[in-house]
């Protein structure tokens, strides 16, 4: 059934998390912006960098921040032979736990050295600061062996940093299920392929891995028509990021003739105000040379001009 394997496509997921800061982390980030690292004083008097918001033993809020040095000692480390996107360096480096002078608990950060032979526990390292600081842990680009370069002088006090923005970008190789793959391969040939549940005999378009009613694989393949009836719809009047069609437009559930489950598509060729439940519509395919294994082969649906379907004929499919 799946001799061809499934269809795959690269998928990028991106989101900028905007995070507000409580008083503890606000103090820490405000310090970083002027190249001053702060530690939090824990209930036992020890100093932790970064400062936790609450003490893990007493659960008290950490309120006292003290300045610590931007130089310190490596407590433990790991070699990163194959950096991944977003990490501080894009060539091999080390992540290390670094106990800064004046602190007791280590900061996790990167150490820039050429090879694993150039780093060891107990080694002294110094922060390398970004040219432009914003109040983020990445204001420290990485640490490097201490050497004899002069100490960093923190800048003057500035505005309080009250939030950070963390961009997250994830890359996936997204696979369609075997059933979805068949559906998309059918589309590349101008066909709409569904599958029938062997138990309830409902025809799903697009086909799914299992009948959600019966929990059994939907195995029997069926080709359905590229025309059908609008069971329900909405008129989109609200603009949103990434919108590709001028508003107002109609998104509708189209129940294809021969299918039992409606699927969502765009309705054009009719004034939005005239779209109605029961309206008969047909697929408008793009020119054949633009087809791929995608639902976008169908540009949209438009009215067929046939009389409306009787409500009784589609009410069980709503």
């Amino acid at each position, binding site marked *: 059934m799946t001799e061809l394997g499934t269809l795959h496509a690269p998928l990028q997921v991106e989101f900028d998390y905007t995070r507000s800061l409580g008083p503890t982390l606000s103090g820490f980030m405000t310090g970083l912006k002027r190249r001053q690292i702060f530690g939090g004083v824990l209930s036992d008097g020890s100093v932790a960098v970064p400062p936790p918001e609450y003490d893990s033993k007493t659960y008290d809020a950490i309120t006292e921040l003290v300045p610590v040095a931007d130089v310190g000692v490596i407590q433990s480390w790991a070699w990163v*032979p194959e950096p991944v996107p977003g990490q501080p360096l894009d060539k091999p480096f080390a992540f290390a736990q670094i106990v800064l002078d004046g602190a007791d608990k280590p900061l996790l950060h990167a150490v820039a050295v050429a090879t694993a032979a150039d780093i060891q526990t107990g080694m002294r390292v110094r922060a390398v600061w970004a040219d432009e600081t914003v109040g983020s842990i990445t204001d420290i680009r990485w640490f490097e062996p201490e050497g004899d370069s002069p100490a960093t002088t923190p800048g003057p006090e500035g505005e309080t940093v009250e939030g950070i923005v963390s961009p997250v970008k994830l890359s996936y190789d997204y696979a369609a299920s075997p059933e979805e793959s068949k559906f998309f391969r059918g589309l590349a040939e101008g066909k709409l392929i569904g599958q029938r549940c062997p138990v309830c005999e409902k025809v799903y378009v697009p086909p799914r891995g299992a009948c959600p009613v019966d929990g059994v694989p939907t195995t029997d393949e069926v080709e359905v028509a590229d025309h059908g009836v609008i069971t329900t719809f909405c008129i989109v009047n609200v603009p949103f990021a990434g919108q590709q069609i001028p508003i107002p437009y109609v998104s509708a559930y189209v129940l294809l003739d021969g299918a039992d489950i409606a699927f969502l598509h765009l309705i054009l060729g009719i004034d939005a105000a005239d779209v109605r439940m029961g309206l008969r519509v047909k697929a408008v395919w793009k020119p054949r040379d633009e087809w791929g294994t995608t639902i976008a082969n169908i540009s949209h649906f438009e009215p067929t001009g046939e009389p409306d379907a009787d409500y009784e004929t589609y009410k069980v499919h709503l």
Partner: protein
Amino acid sequence: MTRDVAIVGYSQRQMKEFDGSPTCVELLVPIFQELWGQTGWTKSDIGFWCSGSSDYLAGRAFSFVSAVDAIGALPPVMESHVEMDAAWALYESWVKIQTGLVDSALVYGFGKSSAGALRRVMSLQMDPYTVTPLWADAVSVAAIQARSGLESGTFDESQMAKVVARSMSDAVSNDSAIRKGATTAEDVLAQPLYADPLRRWDCAPVSDGAAAMIITAADAPGFAKLKGPKAWITGFEHRIEAGALNSRDLKVSESTKSAGAAAGVDGVDLAELHAPFSHQELILKDALGLGDDVRINPSGGALTANPMFTAGLNRIGEAARQVWAGDSQRALAHATSGPALQHNLVLTMEGRS
């Protein structure tokens, strides 16, 4: 008093790369069918459904909702989800049974780790303010933990190599293990370092998979018609430590120790420990106070297959299989979650004649 609850069904699939959708519905459907075969039950005998998975792994929003397709949820079912290993979905289900609200549960987990860069995706579980922006990946964090143990003399490289060798050798008889083969500690030490101090074999292989389990109270209405042996749960506890790595002593596992003490580890003859890195097995064994007479991970453990969100449940399932077969009288299973053994769960079970 706790209600007597037994593990009565378990099935799983794990593989290096699953050629299918990240919702894993195609894996779950046959797994559920196997559970009906093992137990003689149907979905109407199940009072509660609970799953463990993560959309970050799937790259798809609400993937666990799509996975509900595999159940056949009409009439509607009582269902829940945890963004954790399915071992915690089992815990939620066990608590639900203890409350008396339900009598039985089917627990499942799934994950397609191969869809993304797993160690990078896992950096999203770190502190989002001060660590995730550095994309501190799961292998690096574990390697820092390993070095803490190695350089303090808590354990040594040869002990780690023995864990790898035993796991890979034991996995030969496990059809669903991914990395396996008769291996000696010398073979392991001959491998080059990867994420110094870790070798590749010290790190679990990236794995895809799904698993499911049925548990039931002894007084469930359908209990009498159950086929097959039972593994009775005698202790079930989990403990978590602070999220900040620098607030923990990484070379020990206080949460495992505390969960083990609460669950009761006395008299166990077998332990399935969820250690995705070789040195973590040493830390866990020490935290649980397991003697050398306790068989550890006869399945090969997570070092030979570690499908995210099911590898912990698999430890419980593999231990239950040993109890069902009469090869263990009293078994312990452990699951972990979070970076560097942050959160740990211990379940003990026994066979009864």
